[in-house]
């Protein structure tokens, strides 16, 4: 189990029962040594998402328009779906906004 601090914003929190922040214990995928961001997404979909999964995931990753931030950093800078998530990491899923 890896303890992760999850945060949803930009409207994504609505898909997760309107909770913006929570701490969760995420199991490492079987046959894997470490928890990856990609696995965390699927785990959140299966265990936390309350409605309309098609607005959160597409294939094995997040939908276009959603940024993933690991410890205040764009996940593209640390390997995207392959990024390793360690104990105590802060992962933010944020939907890009268009309103003005």
């Amino acid at each position, binding site marked *: 189990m890896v303890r992760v601090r999850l945060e949803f914003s930009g*409207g994504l929190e609505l898909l997760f029962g309107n909770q913006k922040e929570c701490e969760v214990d995420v199991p490492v995928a079987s046959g894997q040594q470490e928890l990856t961001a990609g696995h965390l997404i699927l785990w959140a979909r299966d265990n936390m998402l309350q409605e*309309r999964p098609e607005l959160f995931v597409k294939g094995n990753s997040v939908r*276009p328009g*959603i940024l993933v931030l690991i410890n205040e950093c764009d996940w593209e800078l640390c390997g995207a779906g392959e990024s390793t998530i360690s104990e105590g990491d802060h992962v933010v899923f944020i*939907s890009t*906004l*268009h309103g*003005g």
Partner: protein
Amino acid sequence: MSPPDQTTLPSNCDDASTLRVQNEALRNQVDTLQEQLAALKAELEAARGLTATAADTIAPTPADAPRRASCGPCGGDPSTSAPTAPPAHPPRAPPRHGLSRAQAERYSRHLLLPAFGVAAQERLCRGSVLIVGCGGLGSPAAMYLAAAGVGRLGLVDHDSVDVSNLHRQVMHSTARVGMHKALSGRLTCAAINPTVQVEAHVCGLSPASALALVDGYDVVIDASDNPATRYLVSDACVVAGKPLVSAAAVGTDGQLTVYNHGPDGPCYRCLFPESPSPENCSRCGEAGVLGVVPGVMGCLQALEAIKLLSGVGEVASKKLTLFDALSGRFTTVRLRGRSPGCVACGASPALTRASLPDYDYVLFTGQPPDDGPPPDLQLLDAAARLAPAEVAALLAAEANGAEANGAAAADGAAEAVAEAGEQGPEAGAKRGEDEARAGAESSTGSAGPAGPGPRRGVLLLDVRPQAQYDVMALPGAVHVPFERLDERLGEVLALCGAPAGSTPAGSSAAESSAANSAPTSASAAEAAPQGAAVDAPEAAAAGAGNHPPPRPRVVVLCRRGNNSQRVAARLAALGVEGVTDMVGGYQAWARQVDPAMPLL
């Protein structure tokens, strides 16, 4: 006065929209110059007054009273501003900057600021900013940039001021409802600082006109409200080589970054190569927005534009600032750099000066380039749907029928409905029964406006979000938000007199007996003389060996008439007979039936 930039636009372009942009720009310039002239005349008058007063007491005429003729963005060349004639004023070193006395006074608090100073202010006064969108973000951005003395501002918006804009779009006012936002914005900016040149572009930004507009300015601010425009602005900035200050705000969240800046700053497409689906885009017109939130973000945009023009401070490139208004928190996160494979700013871009004007942004984003309501769906048979006037007639007939029966049954039922909305499923089901009975009692034989057949009680099912229901609703409407329909489906089906999906065995029996008894009870009520009909439903139900309530006529209501169709179609598929909806929802009701109802 520097020559207007727009007159130097390429004239070989036969594109009508480019010509329109040119015309508009020239018109703008005439207007702006006239405004500046008026401001200068006023200043001159004031200065003459001062001179006259001063002449009475002090012999020498202050040479700086008639200010430098150059009123534009920035004063003239410093060398020419040194007096050539022997000074007729107290000793003063020639200014080492290009600001006029009026400018030096107006921007004095910038000049006093060690981190900013006169050189930064001069750069600001020579600079120009294009603001795409004159709404909640564009308002404070434009006002602060005008106040700060940016030489030339371009305001882009095709829309006009609506009363629902005013809680956040602070550049406009109640008196300007209906006016073009770009024109209203120009008035406000000119009032704040008449020495700034403000150009209004009332046609909005289109792929055909975008490059001509963006080429004419140093910095671009994306203050738009939809993905199609956001991709277009970003692409145009990449092609034209301009930095783009981008922000967005919905609900209580705000975001800000600067695109296309520095050696490896990303563009919008680097971050979002694939457009989000329309369902992933919440809009202010649907989700609402706390007015101050775009205000905060628009101010930050003005700040980034000032930093870009003045060269002071660190620009938010490769950084995303997130504002959470409810927790009062700003977070800044690191973003990726330019993507080599980006179709706009990558190594071999598909988007170029030649291809951009023909790019289909509506196709790419799947959304029109505005923040308007979604298109009207047509899920139900159009003939079966009810216009607001028909719903009104149905409700009136129901109320009259109850009155004719000498009973306040309908009123009682309506009150019960209102209570049921707050009391939960059981009370709701009980109320449905009461109301349905009231409908049967009230039958006078005349067919309702919805078509022939026995009249039944009317069940108004309101599926709008709680926030909208809290503002206003039709009396007696049962409120079940669209998002909660699944979890309250059993309750809703019971109200509608349809079998509950959760108890298939019992309910299918109830449904078949209801199907058998309903026409009987209704026709009995219709055939019987008034007064005798009162017991008919019970008698008929008793005859069927069960007590199924006569099923009400279900009319689903929402804000605009799309979700109501979705719900009606769903209920119909689950066995609710004759369920329909109100065309155009509460908005149509407010426009066509009850103008006193607030139009949300």
